[in-house]
């Protein structure tokens, strides 16, 4: 009855370029590849002595973190600084019960400081879409994680890491293991892997940690990790939050480790050239064995390095998309 516009089109300007980065869902293969190519160029640059480029010179980036984060917040800060932006970090810890300033009020306050970009992390799914729909025109919004919905920069740094090691996505069988239900990372990974053409995407978890009808996203569901890991090229582990034991989703950490922890033993079931990834921070002995986390297949630290490059890529691309739109509108007047 209602014309259902693709809600993810809000990310693109009229020329189809990125102007916000909210989710990997609904973006074209070309655009995701462009993000990876751009990120690759920043990876090379970061290895050089002079690590800064002037792409965001004179721009103000505000990191709005409504939820605690160490590595995501710091890599975003570093990425913005390497792009020569002025950076303001705000940690606004809120709980649903604490009645303070509304999200909209916070935004309006930040906008009054003439910010050009918001990097947002929030515990509510859809928060980044909401913010993108509320900001004044030509302010870019980058989603640094919203509820269980999306964490697109994490997914894209994972894609970059995979591409660096595997070249192309088409032949790959990828397994995502662990708490899929609560994971924004898994959702963003699934959309990106599908668009980039991965041959097979599996999710491995007990039913209590699987969202309903996850197979509708184009994945195969395995509750048995030994079966699910067979011939897998890329193993993507997820973090398990301690709270899951209290809410009757799991009996104990040790039982989870026994069934879904990535051990040397289970890793043998995968393809001989398989790689292992984890968004961090890792729980050794809960979701991954120490020797696997530190082993030759593990790319966990590489992911962190790539995180800076990917964040530089989406920040510069989004700002450029906003500028293009601004100029087009000015010429149109």
């Amino acid at each position: 009855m209602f014309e259902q516009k693709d809600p993810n089109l809000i990310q693109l300007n009229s020329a189809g370029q990125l102007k916000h980065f909210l989710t990997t869902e609904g973006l074209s293969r070309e655009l995701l590849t462009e993000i990876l190519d751009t990120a690759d160029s920043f990876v090379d640059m970061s290895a050089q002595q002079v690590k800064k480029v002037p792409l965001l010179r004179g721009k103000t980036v505000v990191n709005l973190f409504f939820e605690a984060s160490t590595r995501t917040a710091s890599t975003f800060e570093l990425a913005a600084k390497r792009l020569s932006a002025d950076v303001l970090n705000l940690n606004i810890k809120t709980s649903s019960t604490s009645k303070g300033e509304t999200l909209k009020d916070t935004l309006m306050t930040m906008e009054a400081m003439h910010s050009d970009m918001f990097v947002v992390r929030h515990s509510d799914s859809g928060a980044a879409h909401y913010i993108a729909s509320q900001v004044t025109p030509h302010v870019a919004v980058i989603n640094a994680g919203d509820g269980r919905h999306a964490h697109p920069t994490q997914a894209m740094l994972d894609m970059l890491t995979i591409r660096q090691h595997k070249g192309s996505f088409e032949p790959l069988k990828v397994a995502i293991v662990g708490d899929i239900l609560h994971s924004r990372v898994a959702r963003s990974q699934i959309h990106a892997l599908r668009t980039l053409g991965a041959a097979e995407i599996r999710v491995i978890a007990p039913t209590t940690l699987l969202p309903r009808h996850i197979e509708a996203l184009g994945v195969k569901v395995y509750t048995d990790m030994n079966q699910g890991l067979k011939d897998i090229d890329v193993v993507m582990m997820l973090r398990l939050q301690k709270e899951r034991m209290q809410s009757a989703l799991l009996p104990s950490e040790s039982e989870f480790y026994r069934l879904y922890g990535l051990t040397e033993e289970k890793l043998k079931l995968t393809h001989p050239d398989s790689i292992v990834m984890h968004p961090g921070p890792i729980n050794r002995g809960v979701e991954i064995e120490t020797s696997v986390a530190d082993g030759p297949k593990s790319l966990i630290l590489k992911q962190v390095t790539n995180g800076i490059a990917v964040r530089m890529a989406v920040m510069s691309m989004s700002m450029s998309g906003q500028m293009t739109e601004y100029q087009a509108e000015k010429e149109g007047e």
Partner: protein
Amino acid sequence: MTKNIAIRNGRVIDPANDLDKVTDLFISEGKIAAIGQAPEGFTVDREIDATNLIVSPGLIDLCAHLREPGYTRKGSIASETAAAAAGGVTTLCMPPITKPIADNSAVIDLIEDRAKQAGNARVLPMGALTQGLKGEQLSPMYALSKAGCIGFTNVREPIRSSLTLVRCLEYAATHDLLVIFQPQDAELADGGTMHDDTTCTRLGLSGIPESAETIEVARCLLLIEQTGVKAHFGQLSCERSVKMVMDARTRGLRVTADIAIQNLLLTDENVSGFDPNFHLIPPLRSQLDRAGLRHALLADGFQAICSDHQPHELAAKQAPFAATEPGMTGLETLLPLSLMLVQQELISLPQMIEKLTSGPASVLGTGLGTLGTGRSADICIFDPEQEWTLTEENHRSAGSNTPFLNFPLKGQVCFTLLEGNVVFQLA
């Protein structure tokens, strides 16, 4: 007040009396005086030309939140009953979620006073089934019924102890009072904001599974059977719930049900853009559920369509989806949205009118919802073909939180009469 009104040449539809014909209707002293021929000695004080218009009993809405007392930032009895009049609704039932909660006669008296002052619509308050809706102690149901409560409900607040629930039902049965359920298992629905299915999974929102409703329907039905109480299920959203209630009726239980119009029109897929206007509880369900509810409509599986009107202030919907308050306004759109079911050729116009008049009246057991001679002259006169839109400028409810704002609607109310008084007239 004692004016004699003649409504001329309208298509008079009164499902309770199987009436559907173009004729005249006469009102005297707030009551229906006659249909067809004017009674002897009838002098006309006012004439309403209803040519090409439908003349139906005033609509009865089994669930509309008026927000007063306690939540007047969202709406007041005056503002929301004005919205009702504009929507052709002459009688509405108000859930006890007020502040203070409607578990004592003082609150009921206040509601009735304010409604009388406003004079726009007949407000029938529902009383709280338990004190403070806490699910622990019985409310003074008998006193509340004498004060004017039409029925008793714990809304979606849980009565966790089945023993307590049994006692509530037994006590209500003692006085033959109507108990109204808005069934939802509190734990299964905890934190949920939409139907638990593919769209929910994709958006990463917390789901409300079908079982949150069906388990509570099943529990309530078993205890209704045990206690013999007269019961009504409000705003069912799942096909399976409606089937269970239909089965129970077939077995002779005194149970009825209503469906919110939005659940007959929309599905969970409408949420896909995180639009908070689709944040509703009970949630919009799957396409299969919608099809099931529509099927039940044809099979007379429920008695009434309601608006589940829930106005909000702007700020309540200005947040990410899950952080917004659920509910949409509906009094002003109840008729045009219900007419969509006729336009889609699912039901006939008289069948639709039945679900908005004599159907809900049968749930309440009042003599309302009909144009029979001697009955209260509560009348809705509308043009089923007139197109219009509800906008920020013309809405009368204090809230404009509906996905149907600025949406092309067909079917507009021209006059609303309450006890023979014109309470709304289209400008």
